[in-house]
């Protein structure tokens, strides 16, 4: 019997951004200037003060607050968490941090559990198709894209800024983070470092038929650190930057909770290094960005309980990638802009198991588009992108070369600022099979075709003007997506021999609603309420004779919601944050035996800031997570922690 588990907990990089000016309006708005991410209004994403009051473990905790996202979480600090947007699948999502794509050609998915959140100052989804012409093309042409901005890679003209925090929480969690940032007319420099560790031995209630027992999660310890530096020079309208970042983690994998069998000894160690740089020029008519990032990732997986003749598994992986590109925009006329770009990503994988392939992938992207506005209200955007992938395998058959062209079309109607903005867009995209899917020992299949996605979306939004006591914003999207050639693991030879096949076609009908509001009663008291609800009816439409035809696809909840309410009085604040997923199915067949119960998780966090003189601040935060002690699992058999707390002390200068 050979059971192979494709389970890679590994993240590519933590990246850099570029120069921009941060202005804070009402403590919550961030407006970027010289930037890859253009933000039209403050409601689109989650800003720094909300991020801080959420006190999440990692980027997954933030991304799940966005609409039409479904997170698969295997639990724990650093535990594998991936995001699928609009039912497309996690491999269609690209994460861009500070203007650089996080790449992972080994398994094609980004582990959000490895992205810290202490230094994130902005996060958003780009599914509304906003023009992101200075972002890497690899992200622009993906089915869905999320952007993160960090404190240490977003520069304004504030001079010297300093942050230092220490935290302690349940299950022996300890952490610290420090960052220093300096920017002036000519220079920019930042440095940061952080460390986290936890035992992760959380109690949980195990339900077995009519019996319940109290158990403790074991082999769930975690230690990580990261540090980095970014430096840059500004001259006139251009900025050039260079930086370095390193991350390491070492964690136990608790695995699924298996009845009557508590053994769990798998471990993962990982080291990630990134060297990056970019040059940005913003002129009156032309803007240009050229960027490069080199990443090397080493991962080691061990399982002393594996019953092979070597007395266990010990396997190391090295995944390297280099991405370089140039993107730009040119204003041809008052109402006509074109944008263009080319990017190349080179990546390879080296595995200590001599049976594994040695793939090398060269992935080329090209993009050309135009933005045309007319009648002062309408905007049309047309885009065409190409991708050419050539693949080599020095020890066997390679997946061969692929070439694809994908269009994107968008029309929007904005009658007046803040009033009803409407947009209709169509996107065609695809995602390449990952190295694991193509080459992984007996499971890989070099004949896999990429998954293709077609999305059509209609959205509209309404908001009040940015002044006034009560401000609110409402947005609704309705969409229909088709994903064909979905790659899934199915047993092909017998129950123990699975292989990756293009077998599934999915149709997703979805809608999401977001309401953001804030109410300033007077200069000292402020309330805000954020609600969102997403509906995703993602069904299998591969084979009408199959028992799963038109059944909801595994692990996509039909209903997802967020309700957040916060109150601030002077320098004291409180936030109650709620997140819920409806019932899911662990396999594609929608029968009661496959049901995974829905859940509702609440977090209550409070803070108090002491404003010292000369722009020094000290903030104390106390957070209770899973306030009502919900016993739940996102993925069957991977239980999540019950009620737990976190205390944070943060010092900030400027």
């Amino acid at each position, binding site marked *: 019997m050979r059971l192979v588990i494709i389970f890679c907990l590994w993240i590519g990089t933590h990246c850099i951004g570029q120069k921009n000016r941060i202005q804070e309006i009402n403590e919550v708005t961030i407006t970027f200037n010289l930037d890859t991410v253009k933000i039209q209004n403050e409601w689109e994403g989650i800003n720094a003060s909300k991020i801080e009051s959420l006190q999440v473990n990692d980027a997954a905790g933030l991304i799940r607050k966005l609409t039409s996202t479904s997170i698969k979480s295997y639990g724990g600090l650093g535990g594998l968490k991936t995001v699928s947007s609009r039912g497309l699948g996690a491999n269609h999502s690209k994460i861009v941090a500070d203007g650089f794509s996080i790449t992972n050609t080994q398994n094609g998915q980004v582990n959000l559990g490895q992205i810290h959140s202490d230094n994130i100052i902005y996060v958003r989804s780009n599914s509304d198709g906003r023009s992101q012409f200075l972002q890497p093309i690899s992200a622009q042409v993906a089915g869905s894209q999320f952007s993160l901005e960090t404190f240490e890679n977003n520069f304004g003209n504030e001079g010297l800024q300093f942050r230092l925090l220490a935290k302690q929480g349940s299950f022996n969690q300890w952490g610290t983070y420090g960052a220093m940032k300096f920017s002036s007319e000519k220079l920019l420099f930042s440095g940061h470092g952080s460390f986290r560790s936890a035992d992760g031995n959380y109690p949980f209630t195990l339900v077995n038929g009519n019996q319940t027992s109290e158990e403790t999660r074991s082999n769930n310890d975690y230690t990580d650190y990261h540090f980095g530096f970014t430096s840059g020079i500004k001259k006139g309208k251009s900025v050039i930057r260079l930086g370095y970042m390193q991350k390491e983690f070492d964690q136990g994998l608790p695995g*699924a909770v298996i009845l009557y069998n*508590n053994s769990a000894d798998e471990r993962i160690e990982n080291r990630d290094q990134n060297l990056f740089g970019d040059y940005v020029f913003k002129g009156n008519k032309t803007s240009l960005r050229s960027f490069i990032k080199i990443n090397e990732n080493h991962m080691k997986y061990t399982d002393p309980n594996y019953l092979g003749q070597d007395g266990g598994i010990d396997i190391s992986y090295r995944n390297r990638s280099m991405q370089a590109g140039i993107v730009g925009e040119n204003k041809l006329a008052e109402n006509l802009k074109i944008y263009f770009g080319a990017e190349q990503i080179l990546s390879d994988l080296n595995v200590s198991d001599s049976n594994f392939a040695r793939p090398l992938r060269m992935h080329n992207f090209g993009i050309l588009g135009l933005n045309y506005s007319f009648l002062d209200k309408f905007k049309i955007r047309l885009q065409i992108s190409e991708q050419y992938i050539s693949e080599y395998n020095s020890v066997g058959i390679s997946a061969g070369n692929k070439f694809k062209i994908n269009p994107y079309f968008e029309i929007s109607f904005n009658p007046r600022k803040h009033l009803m903005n409407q947009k209709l867009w169509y996107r065609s995209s695809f995602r390449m099979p990952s190295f694991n899917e193509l080459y992984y020992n007996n499971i890989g299949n070099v004949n896999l075709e990429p998954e293709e996605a077609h999305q059509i979306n209609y959205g509209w939004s309404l908001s009040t003007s940015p002044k006034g006591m009560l401000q609110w914003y409402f947005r609704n999207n309705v969409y229909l997506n088709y994903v064909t050639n979905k790659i899934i693991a199915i047993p092909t030879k017998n129950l123990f021999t699975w292989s990756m096949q293009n077998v599934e076609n999915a149709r997703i009908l979805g809608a999401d609603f977001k309401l953001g509001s804030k109410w300033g009663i007077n200069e000292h008291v402020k309330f805000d309420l954020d609600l969102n609800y997403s509906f995703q009816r993602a069904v299998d439409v591969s084979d009408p004779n199959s028992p799963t035809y038109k059944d909801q696809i595994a692990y996509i909840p039909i*209903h997802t919601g967020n309700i957040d309410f916060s109150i601030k009085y002077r320098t004291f604040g409180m936030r109650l944050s709620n997140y819920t997923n409806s019932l899911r199915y662990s396999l594609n067949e929608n029968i*009661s035996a496959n049901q995974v119960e829905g859940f509702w998780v609440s977090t209550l966090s409070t803070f108090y800031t002491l404003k010292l003189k000369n722009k020094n601040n000290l903030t104390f935060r106390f957070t209770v997570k899973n306030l009502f002690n919900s016993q739940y699992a996102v993925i069957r058999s991977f239980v999540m922690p019950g009620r737990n707390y976190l205390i944070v002390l943060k010092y900030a200068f400027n």
Partner: protein
Amino acid sequence: MRLIRLLSYLSVLLFSCGKDNKPPVMINSVSNGALVLCEGLFQQNNSQLSFVSFEDNQVENNFFLNRNDRQLGDTGNDLKRYGDKIYVVVNVSSTIEVIDALSFSSIKQISMMNGSTAKQPRSIAFHNGRAYVTCFDGYVDVIDTVSLTVDSRIPVGSNPEGIAIANNKLFVSNSGGLNGPLMDSTVSVIDLNTNQEIEKITVGMNPGTIKTDIFDDIYVIVRGNYGSIPSRMKRINSESNVVEDSFNFNISGISHFNNDFLITQYDYNTNEANVSLFNTSTKVIEIASFLNLNEVQTLYHLTFDSIRNRFLVSDAMGFTNSGYIREYDIQGDYIQSHHVGLNPSKILVYE
């Protein structure tokens, strides 16, 4: 508090049911039916027993859970009866459930852990009041069927899979399946007088299913590497411990049918299944296409019900959808299907 009420209203919205909303069936007596082991899937804790009653053609799923208030565990692999007890070998949970065959209440759960490492038991066979269980950590465990404790461990080859008894000897197929692509290729012979391994016979790569016929010959399937090296059957003379026959047809399973064997051949590319009748005295395939199984999607196991003279086919429905037991009469004509759990495999028939 209004918030909690709001939460509970919303909870009702969120928690809906699956499409099989019928109330579950409860069988009254464990007789005139078939007990089916549904393996479930790895790490889903969803292995279960289903009872198909031939009296009224009802199926009760979760048969063990309903009578013992707790689940069977993760990935049941073998189901056998010895005297008045049923033994279920649960591979990933690493337990053996010993159950009263008539009342179906649990007598004992034998934990198959070696310290903090799971032994991963696979198959069970019985001889003279003892149960012999192959464990993937390279041993055959000897269990006393009265005290229900593990008395000793007999070291064999790597990842032992199947077990058969003939001539006062145990024959264990050492698959070496976790060492792919360099799997094991031996059958260990254990003398049941001494409970020691006396020999290892080389049979071919990745031996799996192993069975005894009425002539005390041992037949083993060497499964190859699921690719270039195909699956073949070999016959071992249990007196001399020598491989005497090597058969040149494709094979995925062997089932007893009166004095003969039914050879199942499942083509994974076309999803087509063929069942041949193998004559154990002439040692040739007598009828190449013995059963025509058009209704079956994934032929996983085949059991002959000698009480009712019917064939019961375990249809695994692609291994990820809930399975069916399909009934065929002695001529091979389709009778009916019963909807059971995920990955039905071994069946025990009850009078």
